[in-house]
């Protein structure tokens, strides 16, 4: 299993349709301060089912929808799609490739789609069961948080081990 493509529109600073093709090895993302690199990490975390606005650096989930700039108006919807290559059949589905999509509107509603058909978050989570996708404790590391593993109290460190167990 690996991530083949990420498509973003209306999510944080990516107001226009943007698509990134990943390869199975190392993909590096570079750029100046504030250009949108960490927003891509947030888009990945969100499409994989993140429920906490705070984990996406916002206060409310609405904060992830493009909020406008001096030259562009705010939009009403954010949409992120992730296409996953399932060639090795690790995901419990027949498809060789699946695309998961998440949308949210200013009204607060959230939609999930699996290969362009509406589904529940539950369906996506079932698909990922036992693959490690979606449980992000040690697979998505936020900016500046590398020290947390070391500086947290011994009792708090066990969560990474529990995730792995």
């Amino acid at each position, binding site marked *: *299993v*690996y*991530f083949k493509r990420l498509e973003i529109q209306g999510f*944080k*600073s*990516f*107001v*226009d*349709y*943007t698509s*990134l*093709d*990943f*390869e199975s*090895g*190392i*993909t*590096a*993302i*570079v*750029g*100046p301060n*504030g*250009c*949108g*690199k*960490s*927003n*891509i*990490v947030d888009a*990945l975390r969100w499409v994989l089912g993140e429920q906490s606005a705070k984990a996406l650096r916002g206060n409310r989930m609405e904060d992830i929808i493009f909020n406008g*700039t*001096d*030259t*562009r108006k705010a939009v009403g919807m954010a949409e992120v799609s992730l296409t996953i290559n399932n060639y090795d059949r*690790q995901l419990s589905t027949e498809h060789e490739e699946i695309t998961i999509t998440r949308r949210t509107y200013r009204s607060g509603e959230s939609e999930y789609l699996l290969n362009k058909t509406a589904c529940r978050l539950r369906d996506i989570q079932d698909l990922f069961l036992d*693959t*490690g*996708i979606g449980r992000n404790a*040690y*697979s998505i*590391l936020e*900016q*500046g948080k*590398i*020290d*947390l*593993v*070391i*500086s947290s109290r*011994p*009792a*708090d*460190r*066990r969560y*990474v*081990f*529990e995730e*792995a*167990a």
Partner: protein
Amino acid sequence: SRVRFAETFSQVRVQFREVFRRLFNGGDADLVLMDETNLLETGIEIVARPPGKHLQNISLLSGGEKALTAIALLFAIFLVKPSPFCVFDEMDAPLDDNNTVRFSRILQEFAEKSQFIIITHNKLTMEKAGVLYGITMPEAGISRIISVKFKEEDKSKPVRKVPPA
């Protein structure tokens, strides 16, 4: 679940010592359960000794040594329970050039089995990537993707300037 925790813990411990020695080019590391009789709640103590130095509380380690120790632990967990993908956001920021070279070399090894998406400012880490995306904001506040670099064998292809959407 108690048995699984104990098993995972002892496997991670073995890997942690191994990865730590490779990242620090020597030295010693260990993981200790604070209370072995209570596997479901015990905290975990991290022990780390850079080469040539005496064993001390990990709070006395330098910023770079703490980050490298955290990376060793993360990689150790990853070896025991590999996740199909990993996203690192400027994880190499506190490291000097020598440590960055060792880190990116191990990253490249892991990338044979899993997918890595990394955000970095460090040229030494960028060199290891098969695909490189540049993000800019030609219009303030709006993110655009500007370029893609292919792996060695594709270097013959010109660097594709992805037209702004």
